[in-house]
Structure formats: structure tokens, C-alpha cells
């Protein structure tokens, strides 16, 4: 399938290099150089993925992202930022960006992430059909509705937390290193980005552990990685 990408980037040199790499990878690319035009383009057409620079003339990346989310909530967004410090805002999912790359970035890595993102979307569709419901302790993970329930109460999870939990549930009792989780859940792992796994595991623990300070479901194996224990031993008094 020939996917249609929207690139919003004001720098001609970067835009040109990206066009080379992305068209080589088989994607069709439409480029806008300023925020206002990007929002107009979003209004005209639904894209399969949006690559969005944060610092833009006209309207900045945050505004364009809000605009996109208001119209097409499910279109994945990858932010291109000059500051890795902004990654927290991006990944905090305030605006639902799915990924980010910090300049200077490798074009090959970016193409790899785009592929991973599309692959993940496809896999989710298939997995949901294969095993619609996974259970552990008092929890139920509904993969069709992408929802975690404790009894009948829905537990709020972000997209990425859901993916992480889903992956761990499918491989109980097996430890994964952080790099493996990054590869398999996030789709790619790059320097300066790995700690996001720790943040997500922290947040996931706060949702599914009885005492997040003494985790019993998502446990650490020193020097190895993380393991999911669906039926943890009862805490000793």
C-alpha cells in the first residue's frame, strides 16, 4: 500500500533529505513549510502519518498537532524537535504524539521508526482479532476496545502503556531487557530515548500494582530486565 505522509518542516535542506529517504522507502510525501498551510492541508485530506517540526513559522507544531487531533484523532504523529528536553512533553502524550526524533537525527532511523509505527498498527488489528481478552488477577485487558478493566471499572491507560501491558501479558514469566522492550513495543530503540521505557513501566505499575513501591507483577531482574508475573505470590506479612 502506498502510504501518504505529510511533512511539516520549514527547513528546505532537511525537507529535501527527508523526501529522498522517504520516497526511496516507498512513501508518497506532501510537504508544507509553515503551520497555517499545514493545518489547511490537514483540513483538505486525511494523511496516514504526519511528520511535524515543532518550531514553525505561522503556527507552531503544538498548534498544528492540536488541530490534527481535533479532526483525525487516530493519525499517528512523529515530532521532529531540536530539543531533547521537549521529548517529555511530546511523550507525556499531552497532545497524543506517537513518537519523536531530536535533531540532529538519522534519516535511516526515522524511516525505521515510521515502518515500526505502521507495523504496530497492523499488528494491533490482527492481535485484537486473535485474542480479544487477556486476564490477570482482578484485571481484564480488552484488546478489541483497547481497554483495561478492574472488575467493571475501566483503568485509564495511554496508548503506549496499553501496548506495553499487552506485550508483557502475551509473554508471562519471561524477562525482557529494556532494549528488547523498546524494539518490540516501541518498534525501535535509539540513543537518548531508552529511559522512556522506565517512565512507562513506572506509570504502568501505578495502575496495576497493589503497592507500586513493592512491585509484584512487573518485577525487575537485576542485570537482566523486566518480567511479568501474572499470579504474584501473596506479600509476606
Amino acid at each position, binding site marked *: 500500500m502506498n502510504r501518504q505522509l505529510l511533512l511539516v518542516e520549514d527547513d528546505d535542506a532537511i525537507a529535501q533529505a527527508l523526501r529522498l529517504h522517504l520516497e526511496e522507502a516507498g512513501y508518497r510525501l506532501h510537504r508544507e513549510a509553515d503551520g497555517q498551510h499545514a493545518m489547511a492541508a490537514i483540513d483538505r485530506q486525511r494523511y496516514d502519518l504526519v511528520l511535524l517540526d515543532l518550531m514553525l513559522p505561522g503556527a507552531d507544531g503544538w498548534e498544528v498537532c492540536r488541530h490534527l487531533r481535533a479532526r483525525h484523532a487516530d493519525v499517528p504523529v512523529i515530532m521532529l524537535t531540536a530539543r*531533547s528536553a521537549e521529548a517529555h512533553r511530546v511523550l507525556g502524550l499531552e497532545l497524543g504524539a506517537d513518537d519523536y526524533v531530536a535533531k540532529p537525527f538519522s534519516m535511516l532511523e526515522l524511516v525505521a521508526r515510521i515502518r515500526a509505527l505502521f507495523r504496530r498498527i497492523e499488528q494491533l488489528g490482527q492481535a485484537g482479532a486473535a485474542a480479544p481478552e487477556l486476564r490477570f488477577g482482578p484485571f481484564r485487558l480488552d484488546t478489541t476496545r483497547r481497554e483495561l478493566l478492574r472488575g467493571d471499572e475501566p483503568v485509564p491507560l495511554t496508548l503506549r502503556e496499553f501496548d506495553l501491558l499487552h506485550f508483557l501479558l502475551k509473554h508471562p514469566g519471561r524477562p525482557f*531487557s*529494556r532494549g528488547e522492550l523498546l524494539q518490540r513495543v516501541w518498534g525501535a530503540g535509539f540513543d*537518548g530515548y531508552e529511559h522512556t521505557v*522506565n517512565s512507562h513501566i*513506572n506509570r504502568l505499575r501505578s495502575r496495576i500494582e497493589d503497592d507500586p513501591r513493592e512491585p509484584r507483577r512487573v518485577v*525487575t531482574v*537485576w*542485570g537482566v530486565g523486566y518480567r511479568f508475573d501474572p499470579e504474584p505470590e501473596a506479600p509476606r506479612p
Partner: protein
Amino acid sequence: MKPARASFTTRLLLVLALLLLGYGAFVALTARQFAHEQAQESLQRLSHGLAGHIVAQWPELTRADRAPGDGTSADGAARKALLQMLMTVNPGVQVYLLDADGRVQHYIGEPGMVRQHQVDLQAVRDFLAGADLPLRGTDPMGSGVARIFSAAMFPPRAGDSRPPGYLYVVLDGAAREQVAAQVGADRLWQGLAWAALAGLLVTLALGVFSFRRLSLPLRHLAVQMDGYRQREAAAAAPTGDEVQALAQAFGALRSRVEAQAEREHRQMADHREMMASVAHDLRTPLTALHGHLEALAQGALPGAPADAAGARHAVMQAALAQSRKVGRLSQQLFELAALQSGDPVLQRERFALDEVVSDAVQKFEVGRAEPPVMLQGVPPGRLELEGDLQLIERALTNLIDNAVRHAPAQQPVRVSLRRDGALAEIVVEDSGPGLPGELQERLVQGQSLREPPIRRLSGGIGGLGLAIAQRVAVLHGGSLRPLPAPGGGTRLCLLLPLAAP
């Protein structure tokens, strides 16, 4: 407690009041003196002809000269009665009969009352010659004070050019002076006191009003200065009034401005040095990158044409390596600039440090054969930290990366984590050549690795990765110190305070 201090206005008013009092006293005393002079002149002028009149009216007085010492004669008795009468009519005067040489011959009063028997005849002659008044002469009562008088010469006898004697009347005798002093002093001082008090009060009231108005800007300035001082908490609390406080504040301000100027000057110098070093560090890989790209563009590849594809690949790999170097450098500079800004924003969260350390080590295990990175020591258990996860990971990565780049191949880089009371202690050790002298020295002293920047002999900047790690440690209330490495190599210890349980 802060001692109360009089405000500048109060002190000004106090000084004004004192000056006014002094001025009042001076004016009063001068006026009193002038009034006294005038009174004496008037009295003397009024009584100018008194002695002459008496001599003309009672010529028998002059006869005393003809029978000296005869107090019991008929003439003597008459003269005595006359003098008595004169002094009764005007008790303020004292009447004396003088001989031709000015010696006192007769007087009315207690025996021995006259202590100064010789009267200065020059004053008497001046008086008779019509000199300017007031004219003062001898007080025969010996008060030592010269007194106004009236005098007349007895008519000279026939054939004798010298007068036979003089009638000498002291106009402001002791009795008169006593009464005048009693009455005058009281009235004068009372009046003066009232006038001075009233004047003082009116002037003070006006002074309070006008001084307060005039010193309003001064007080505002003092209040602002005090507010500034309290906000800055830099200078000591001022002593004295507003003006003194302003002077102190000005002094403190000047010191601050001078210190700041000096600091800025130093920072500018550091900055210039940093810029020069950054330019150097960027130029080196960029020159190499540019050279490789030029080679590709021109097809100037080494080796035989048959190996063209392999040669192109090798040149491109070299170019990519240089490009990565530029990227890493710019990233480090960017991070350091952000961390060194006045108020870096930390994205704090509570996380398990043991997991991050384990993960960071694993990051180096994957895909890098030499030198190996390994965890050492027993599992530390769960160690929670409240901090910026990304920055802590960056610090750990920099420490391990630094060790990996300097350790010889096959010699492992060892990372350990343990709890030391309320601190987590992470030690990264390698068997490389050890830290350069200045870097080691500054870490031992706990000094910043960035201010001033460390220059490498090659001209570039050194220790960027460690500087970031150090800054991250400091921002989290921890430290980065070198540990003794007796077997050679480098042992760096990152101490971070753990989250409260």
C-alpha cells in the same frame, strides 16, 4: 531587637531647635546689652546738669573744701543735711565731694563704705568738657565697675587757677543697680523665655510640616532601598537614619555592581574561550566530513577502479562517523547549555534507580564487544530516586561511555550500585590511563568542570560528558567525585540522594 533610630527629619528638627535656641539667646543678650547702654546714656543725659545745678543752688557745699575734716561745724552739718536730702529724694544716686586732686572728701553712708578714695579726674574733666555720652567714671564704693556720673566743679577762688574741688554724683549706684537687677532680670528673662518658646514652637511646627514634605522623596528612596536590601538579603541591615542608610545602601550597591561587572567580564572571557573551543571542535570533524563528501562528489576514490564500490562505501562510512561526531558534540553542548541555564527545569518523577543502572549497563552490552561493560557486586534491591529520569540516565551513560572510550580493549568497565545510608553510590571504573590532571583536580575539589571551561592541549574543550554528569548530580543534590584507583585507571563515584521512604 533592632535599636530604634531617629529619622533624618527628627534629627534635622532637633538641630534646628538647638540652633534656634542659640540664636534666640544671642539676640536676647545683645538686645539686653544695647538696652542697658541706651538706658545709661538716657540717664546720664537726663542728669547731665544735676551736679552743676546742685553746686549752683547750694554754694555752701563748696565750703567743705575750706574747712577740711570739720564734720562738726555748722557748715558741715548743713552740708550733711543737704547730701542726706539729695540721697533721700533720689536713692539711686550717691553724692561725693572731691578735692582738687579727685580724692573723696565727704560722702553719705556707712563709714568705710568708700573703698576707692581716688576718683579718675580725667573722666570728670572729659565730662565737663562735654564729651560723648555715656561716659563712665570711678565707683568710689570700689565695685570695680565704671559708672555713669554727673560732675560739677566748685568755682575757683580768686587768684587760684585750680578748682577747689568737685561735686561727683554716681547716677547708677549700687542701690539702683540692685533694684534694677531684681526687677529687670525677672521681667526680661520671663518675656524672653516666652517669646523664645513661642517662636520655637511655631518654627518647629512649620519645620515639621515643611521638612516632612521636603524629605518625602528621601524617605521613599530609603524605603525602596530597604525593600531591595531585604529582597536581596545581601547587605547587612543599615544603621543610622535614612541618609546614612542610603549611603550604606549605595556603598553596598556599588560593591555589587563592581563585583557583577567583574564576574561578567570573567564570564565573557570564559564564553569567548568556550566559543573558540567549540568552533575548533566542530571544525575538525566538519573538515573531515567535507573532505570525504568532496571525494565522493569528484569520484576521487582510492584504490583500483574495480574496487570503486568498496572504496565509496569506506569513504561514506568515514563521512558518517564524522557526522555522528558533530551530532554528538552539538547534543552535548546543547544539553550542557540547558543544564547551566539559571533555572533548568527538571521533569521529576519517582523511579527505581537500580533498574536504570541495570538498563544503562545493558545498553552498552548490546552490540559493543570491546571493552565489555558489566555490573559488579550484589543486587542492591530497590533503590528509589526522585529526579529527572532522562538526566540521570544521561549522567550514567556519559560516565560509562567515557570509561568505554578510554579503557583498553578486553579490560572490562565495571559498574556497581549500592546504598550508603540516604545516598545511592554508583561507581564506574575502568583500567584506562586515568583522568587528565586538571579534570581530576577539579573533581577532587568539587569544582565545576565548566566554569571556567577546561581546554585541551589540542585546542578543543575537554570533559563535556563528565561536566554534564557533574551538573546533573549537583542539580539532584548529589556529587561526582573520583575515588582512589591504586591499581591505575579511573574510578568515578556518582552520589545521589535517595527519595524519602
